[in-house]
Structure formats: structure tokens, C-alpha cells
């Protein structure tokens, strides 16, 4: 294990066959992934896919039931010292609602050894957040900004954000992501932010992790993912080998024609197929559709 650690010093977050179970249901299973340093990574998947579970495991709130997760080479569960390097903004940006923003900045100072209160105050001043109003009375967007300012004041090397924009209106969403990007651009902080909508994060992320049904469906740098997949349109496909295609991710057929989304391992030169570039969203949707859980007909007592 120390060997892999040595090789991957540039890895911020590593999960190795990581699993977490609630009762008999696996919220996350066989999850293996690596997040290199300096990336802005999007963690995408439908609701209930295991995104929050993965983030909670990474910040040490949860203890793995299987496998291991390491942040900067350390196992985060029960590791108080490692917490100093991780900034975490939980879903719905929970804060003490009767505290004012100024009091929260003080509270953060009392709770952390490394704490840049001046940075937090400056950010909040720039954003026009009133310092003496209970944060429960602020708008959702303002509250999210307060939570982000508190997370950044820790000067974390890894910033984890769980659905940070889900409850925000489109304008607040854009402002939040802009201010996030502005603040991590210089510091080299690695960011992992989750959303059930790729569209929210597509413009800011350069790394992608797709989770579905407790499993990792896809992970990698965005440019590689886009470059490594193609749309093919051609005669009806019966499952035979196509040159340059590593795997068919998703196929839809009419009587005479097939439309495929494929992962390529070389140029597709077969003239029978029309090759088109894909967008990131095409890739994600193909993988999500592939892993969709089928509603159990027997459980519902209806014929399949």
C-alpha cells in the first residue's frame, strides 16, 4: 500500500474498491477512482447515486464498509489532523441559522488551527453579505456564499462541495460558480463538486466522475472523455466488431439504421459509418442510461 502511495503523490483523492452500506443496501460499491491534484472535478449522477456518500467518506464523516479511501494519502475517518486540509460544504449549506456571518467567521477561527479570517471577511464584504444579520435570514445564494467563504478560510488543499448550487436560482448559480473559480484559480486547490445536473458544472470542470446506482460509471479528464468517444450512424448493427471501436456504450436501432455511442481506441475508418464528435453531455447521458436500474416488474406485481 505504501508503494502505491509513493507513486501517486500527485493524487489528492483515491478510492480503492470503496463501499458503504446502509442496512443491506449498498450506497456505494466497488468504487475505485483517482482525482489528480489541481483539477476541478465534477461528480455527476442522479439523485441517490451515492454522490453524498462518496463525499462524506472523503471528508471522514463516514467510515467505509469495504475498501479504502485516502485523501492526501491519509484515511480521513477519525483523522482530525487531516481535516485541516479539506474544506467541505455540505448539501443545503447547513450553517447555524441564528449566527450572523461575522459570528460564523469567529466560530471558524475557534474551530480551526489554520484560519484566514481576513480572507473570509474580505470575500463576504465583496459579495455584499451583511455581517450582522442572522444567516437564516439571508437568501439561499448568500448563504451558499457564506458557507463557501468559511470553507475557503480554512485554506484547504481539497475543497469538497455537495450539490452546492442545487437550491440556487440560475443567476445565483452562475455567481456562485464564478466566485468559486475565481478563488481557486490561483491557489491550486483541488475541487470536487457534485451535482445531479451536468449542465450546472460543465462550464467549470475539467475532470469528470459519473456515479450511478452506487457505482462509478465513468471517470477521467473531460478532454480525454470527449476525444475518446464518438457517435456512429450507419446500417443496422448486429453486434459485430467495428474497427477502432473499443466498446459500444449505447445503441439505438430503427429497422435499417443503428445509432451508436462508442468508446474508441483508434480512428473509425469503416466508410459504412458516419462518425460525429460528441459533447460531454452525450457521453454522460449514454453512461447513465447504460447503468439505469430497471424497475422491477415483479416487485410491482405487473407483467414485464
Amino acid at each position: 500500500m505504501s508503494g502505491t502511495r509513493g507513486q501517486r503523490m500527485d493524487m489528492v483523492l483515491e478510492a480503492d474498491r470503496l463501499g458503504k452500506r446502509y442496512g443491506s443496501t449498498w450506497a456505494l460499491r466497488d468504487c475505485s477512482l483517482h482525482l489528480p491534484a489541481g483539477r476541478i472535478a465534477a461528480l455527476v449522477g442522479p439523485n441517490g447515486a451515492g454522490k453524498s456518500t462518496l463525499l462524506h467518506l472523503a471528508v471522514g464523516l463516514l467510515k467505509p464498509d469495504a475498501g479504502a479511501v485516502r485523501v492526501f494519502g491519509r484515511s480521513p475517518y477519525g483523522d482530525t489532523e487531516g481535516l485541516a486540509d479539506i474544506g467541505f460544504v455540505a448539501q443545503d449549506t447547513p450553517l447555524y441559522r441564528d449566527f450572523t456571518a461575522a459570528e460564523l467567521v469567529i466560530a471558524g477561527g475557534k474551530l480551526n488551527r489554520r484560519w484566514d479570517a481576513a480572507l473570509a471577511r474580505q470575500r463576504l464584504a465583496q459579495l455584499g453579505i451583511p455581517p450582522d444579520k442572522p444567516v437564516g435570514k439571508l437568501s439561499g445564494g448568500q448563504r451558499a456564499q457564506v458557507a463557501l467563504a468559511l470553507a475557503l478560510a480554512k485554506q484547504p488543499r481539497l475543497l469538497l462541495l455537495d450539490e452546492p448550487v442545487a437550491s440556487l436560482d440560475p443567476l445565483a448559480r452562475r455567481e456562485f460558480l464564478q466566485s468559486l473559480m475565481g478563488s481557486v484559480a490561483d491557489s491550486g486547490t483541488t475541487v470536487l463538486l457534485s451535482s445531479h445536473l451536468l449542465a450546472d458544472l460543465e462550464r467549470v470542470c475539467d475532470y469528470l466522475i459519473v456515479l450511478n446506482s452506487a457505482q462509478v460509471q465513468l471517470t477521467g479528464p473531460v478532454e480525454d472523455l470527449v476525444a475518446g468517444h464518438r457517435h456512429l450512424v450507419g446500417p443496422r448493427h448486429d453486434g459485430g466488431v467495428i474497427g477502432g471501436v473499443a466498446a459500444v456504450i449505447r445503441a439505438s436501432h430503427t429497422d435499417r439504421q443503428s445509432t451508436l455511442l462508442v468508446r474508441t481506441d483508434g480512428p473509425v475508418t469503416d466508410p459504412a459509418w458516419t462518425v460525429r464528435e460528441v459533447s460531454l453531455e452525450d457521453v454522460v447521458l449514454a453512461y447513465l442510461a447504460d447503468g439505469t436500474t430497471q424497475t422491477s416488474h415483479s416487485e410491482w406485481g405487473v407483467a414485464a
Partner: protein
Amino acid sequence: MIWLTWRQHRKQAFYTLLALTALAALLVPIGLSMRHTFADLGLTDCARQLADANVAAATREACDAGFRRFGNQYGGLNLVAVLLITLPALVGLFWGAPLVAREVEHGTHRFVWTQGVGRTRWALVKFGLVGAAVVILAAVYGLGMSWWVDPLTQVAHEGRLGMIVFDLQGIVPIGYTLFAVALGVFAGTVWKRMLPAMGITLAGFIGVRAAVEILARRHYQPARTQTFPIEGEGPPEISRGDWILTQGVRNPDGTLIAEDTRIQCPPGGKGPEGRACGAELGIEPGAYNWQSYQPADRFWLFQGIETGIFVALALLLLYLAVRRIRRIA
């Protein structure tokens, strides 16, 4: 952490103190007036004289009359005393149950447990500070109640060991209050919502308190037994302040022939139709009154044991709560 704990609970602390002050403002005048009446009726002397074993019968009668008058005037306050023993439960409900449950319900545990202090330290500091505040609160309450309930206790035959008054004074309120808070905290770590945690705390507190009070307390020390003859002059002697567990009449061979009874016959007295006194109960010659009791001077020993039990339960619950907190996400 200390700053945060104070900032989070200062409003609650303020209202708790306000409630305690209001209660004091209500009870202190009543207590003073009770004491005035007690002194005016000459009961202070009575209490001292009755502690002496061989009191003149006349004094005893005069004193009993005084106690009765006092009892008639202030006996209703025993109901107030019953209400007052619920205070530790209320502290458990409003201080204990929300301590963790509120954080989890509002999701703020994910904020505070992911800062630089670990959640174990968070829990220990919080439990420690709230626990210390609660101990001070309960000590003040216990001392105040000892003062307040003293006249009522002296009037009652069973004295300070009697149910309700025992629970109200001395150091047991500290044990009860700590236990209630710990139970609330633990319930909050299991059910993680304030209302269920409060409900469970209330039910659990009543259950454990009742079980200890009814089943365990009488066995803290082996009971003493006392026998005295059936035939004798004057009213039966009842030792004030002793807690009588069982009493009855026994035949010379030891069989209990009448429970919860005592018989007092004048010397040579005859029952109806010239039979021996109490013959209709099946009493044989040589039968005697019998009682088992806990003597009054065991009050502080019993207070200590009961406090110890509840403090131990509280510590166990807090330990379990810390363990559970490590698994809440």
C-alpha cells in the same frame, strides 16, 4: 469550542435562569410563610422533643395536634412538591435531547464536525460544559428544595426518606438531572430528531426513576426490624423519620397473621364476648407487632447511593453517545 458552545446556548441559558428565578420568586415567599407558621405553632421545639425517645404523652399529643394543624394548612403543597420533581426531566428534554439531535436535524453537524476539531472533542467539550452547567443548576435546585421542603418533611411521619420529598432535596437532584440530560443526548444520537428524542427521554426518565424508586431504593441497605408488644399504654409509638417498609402482626412462631396492621390493646383489655384482644384475627398469646424499616439516619447514605446510581447511568449513556456520534454522517 467554549465560545461556540456559549454562543449556541446562551439564549437557552438565559431562559433557564429566568425560569429558575421565577420559580424562586414564587417558592421563597411560600417557604418563608411555612417557616413562620411552623415556628408560631411551636413545632420547632416539638421536633426536637420528639426526637427524644421518652417524651411525655402530653407533649406528644400537643405536638401531634400542632403537626396536624400545620398539615391542614400546607398539606396542599405536597402536590406542588410532586410537580417540582419533574424539573430534572424538563432539563433533560430541553437541554439534553436537542444537543445532538438539533445539529443533525439542521444538518449543522456536517459543518461543525468537518472543521479542525474532531467530533469526539466537540462532543466531550459540549457534554462537559453543558454537564457542568447542569450540575450547578441542580445543586442550587437541590439546596433550595432542601430548605423549602424541610417543614413539610418534619410534619410527615416518614420524614426525609419519604417518597417525593427524598427525591426533591439533597444531592439526588444532581444525579437525576445529569441522567436526564445524558438520556436526552443519547436518545438524540439514536433517533436524530428532536421530537422523538424528547419523547423517548421523557418515557425513559420516568421508567428508570420509577423502577429505582419503587424496586431498588428499599434494598440499598438491609432493612432493620423492630418488634413491640401488643399490650401497652397510650397511643402506639411511631418513630418519626423512619421509612417503614412493611409492618404487621406476627404470632410467637413468626408467622405473619395480619399485614399492614398494628394492634395496640390496653393492658388486660378484652375484645367482644370477653375474648382476648385481637382474637378475631387469630392472634395467639405472645403475638407481637413487627415492622421492617430503614432508619432516618440513613438519609445521606441513601442520597449518596441513589446519586451514584444515576451519575453512573449518565456516564454510561454519555459514553455510548460519544460512540454513536462517531457513526453519524
